[in-house]
C-alpha cells in the first residue's frame, strides 16, 4: 500500500518553544490514523503544518509523493486534502445544500460561468447524496447556522468529504458532541471509510472515539512521537500511560 501522506523530520518552533520536534510518520492508503496526546503536545501545530496553515521551520510534507510544504490551504484542498474544524466552520446563513455545493469546489470557473451557469454547478445531486448519507435530508434547506451543534459537526464532516478527497484530516471531531451524536458521527465516518476506502487522520481527545475508529494510533508528547501502534497496543503501553492516560 502506498503512502498518501508522508511527514518527515517536521519541526516547528514558536520563539523558544519547540511545538513539533522532528516528527516523521506516514499514512497509508485506506488507513485511519489517530493522533493523540495531552494538551500542548503539538497535535494542532502538526495538523496546521500539514494543512498549510503554518510553515514548518524544517522538514517536509508530501501528499501522494508530491512535496506540499509551504502550499496554501486552498492549494492543498485542490490536491484532495480536506479537513474538518475543531471550531466549527460553516456558512451559517446558507442552506445545508449550498454549504455542500461550495465545499465541492464549485467555485472554479470564470466569473462569467458563475454568473450564467447552472446555480447548482452540477453538484446538486452529489450534495443531496452526501446529505442523505449523513442523515440530514430533512435539514437540506435549513440554514446551516440553525442546526444543532452536533448536526453542524456532521455537516462539517460532510463538507470535508464533498470534494471526494484523497485524505481527510479531522480536527477533534468529537469535541463537544453528546454521546448519541458521537455514535452517529463515528458510524458515518466508518461507513464512509468502508465504502470509499478513504484515508483519515484524526486528532482527538476522546479516547473511546479514537480507539473505536482508528486502525493505528500515534502518541505525541512535548512535540515528539513517544509511541505508535494499534489501539490495543497503545492502551497497554506504559510510556503512554505515564505521559497521558495516567493523568
Amino acid at each position: 500500500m502506498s503512502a498518501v501522506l508522508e511527514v518527515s523530520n517536521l519541526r516547528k518552533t514558536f520563539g523558544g518553544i519547540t511545538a513539533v520536534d522532528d516528527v516523521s510518520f506516514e499514512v497509508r492508503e485506506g488507513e485511519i490514523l489517530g493522533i493523540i496526546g495531552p494538551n500542548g503536545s503539538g497535535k494542532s501545530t502538526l495538523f496546521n503544518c500539514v494543512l498549510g496553515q503554518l510553515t514548518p521551520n524544517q522538514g517536509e510534507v508530501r501528499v501522494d509523493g508530491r512535496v506540499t510544504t509551504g502550499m496554501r490551504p486552498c492549494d492543498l484542498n485542490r490536491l484532495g486534502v480536506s479537513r474538518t474544524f475543531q471550531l466549527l466552520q460553516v456558512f451559517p446563513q446558507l442552506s445545508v445544500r449550498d454549504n455542500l455545493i461550495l465545499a465541492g469546489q464549485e467555485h472554479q470557473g470564470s466569473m462569467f460561468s458563475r454568473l450564467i451557469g447552472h446555480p447548482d454547478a452540477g453538484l446538486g445531486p452529489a450534495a443531496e447524496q452526501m446529505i442523505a448519507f449523513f442523515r440530514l435530508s430533512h435539514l437540506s434547506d435549513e440554514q446551516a447556522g440553525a442546526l444543532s451543534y452536533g448536526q453542524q459537526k456532521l455537516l462539517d464532516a460532510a463538507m470535508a468529504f464533498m470534494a471526494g478527497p484523497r485524505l481527510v484530516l479531522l480536527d477533534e471531531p468529537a469535541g463537544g458532541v453528546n454521546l448519541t451524536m458521537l455514535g452517529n458521527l463515528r458510524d458515518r465516518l466508518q461507513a464512509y471509510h468502508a465504502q470509499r476506502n478513504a484515508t483519515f487522520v484524526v486528532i482527538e481527545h476522546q479516547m473511546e472515539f479514537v480507539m473505536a475508529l482508528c486502525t493505528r494510533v500515534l502518541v505525541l508528547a512535548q512535540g515528539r512521537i513517544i509511541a505508535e501502534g494499534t489501539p490495543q497496543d497503545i492502551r497497554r503501553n506504559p510510556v503512554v500511560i505515564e505521559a497521558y492516560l495516567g493523568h
Partner: protein
Amino acid sequence: MASFVQLVVSGLATGAIYALIAVGFTLLWQTSQTINFAQGEFVMLPAFFILASMNLGAPFWLAALIGIALSILVLGLLFKLVIVDPMLKHGVLPLVISTIALSLFLKESAKDFYSSQAQPFPALVPSTDVHVFGAVVSTQSLAVLAVAIATVVALHLLLNKTRLGRCMQATAQNPTLARILGIPVRRMVLYTFLINGALVAIASILISPIYLAKFTNGETLGMAAFLAAIIGGFNQVRGAILGGVILGVLDNLSAAYISSQYRGAFPLLILIAVILLRPQGLLGRIEERTV
C-alpha cells in the same frame, strides 16, 4: 384617505431609493467591514457625471449609462484600491475616518468643479398624475418605485440564484472557510464594491430629479442610508430594504400628520427605539465578532 395613499406612494418611492443606498452600505460592511460614511456623497456624485456627459452632448440615456459606468469605476474600483485596501489593514476606525474625509473631498469637489447651485436633472418619465384608488399619484413616483424594485430583484437574483452570488455570500459569512475552499475572496469583495458603485448611481438617477443635483445632497442621503441600515439590521440586505422603506414612508406621513417642523426628528426617534429594544435591527442577526 386619498392624500394618505398619495403620501404613502411618494414615501415608498423615496424609501425605495434610501433602500438602494442602504443595501450598498450593508454589502460593504458585510464583505469588508467598511463603514462608508461617504455613501451619501457617492449618491450625489453620479448625477454630476451624468450632467457633465450631457453638457458634452450625450443624450440622457447615454449619459446615464456613462454615469453608471464611471460610478462603478471610480466609486467602486478606485475607492476599493486607493482607500479601502490601504486603510483596512490599520483597522476599521482609520477606514471610517478616511471615508469621512472622502465625503468632504467629494462634496467640495462637486462644488468647486461643477457648481454650488442646485442643477435641474432630467426625470425618467414625464411628470403627469395618474389616479390610483381615487388618489393622485405622480408617474415619477411610480417610475422610481419600478426601477428601485427591479434593481433590488436583480440584486436578489444575483446573490441568491447564481454561483457567483453564493460565493459572495460565503465570503461575507465566513471568509476563512471561503479562502480554504479556494473561493477568490479578494475578488468577491471587489465585486461588492462594484455593485455598490452601480447601486449608488441608480439611486442618484432616481433621486436627483426630485432633490435636484446639488453638492450637499449627500448629507441627508448618507444619513438616511445609515439610519435605514441600523433600523433594518446592519448585516442583512433585506433589513436595509425594510429600513429604507420604513424611513421613507414615515418621513412623509409624520411631516403631513404630526409636524413638518420636526420631520427630521422622527427617524431618529425610531432609531433610538430600535437601538434600545432591538439593537441588532428589525431583521438583523446578533453578531459575535472578535475584532
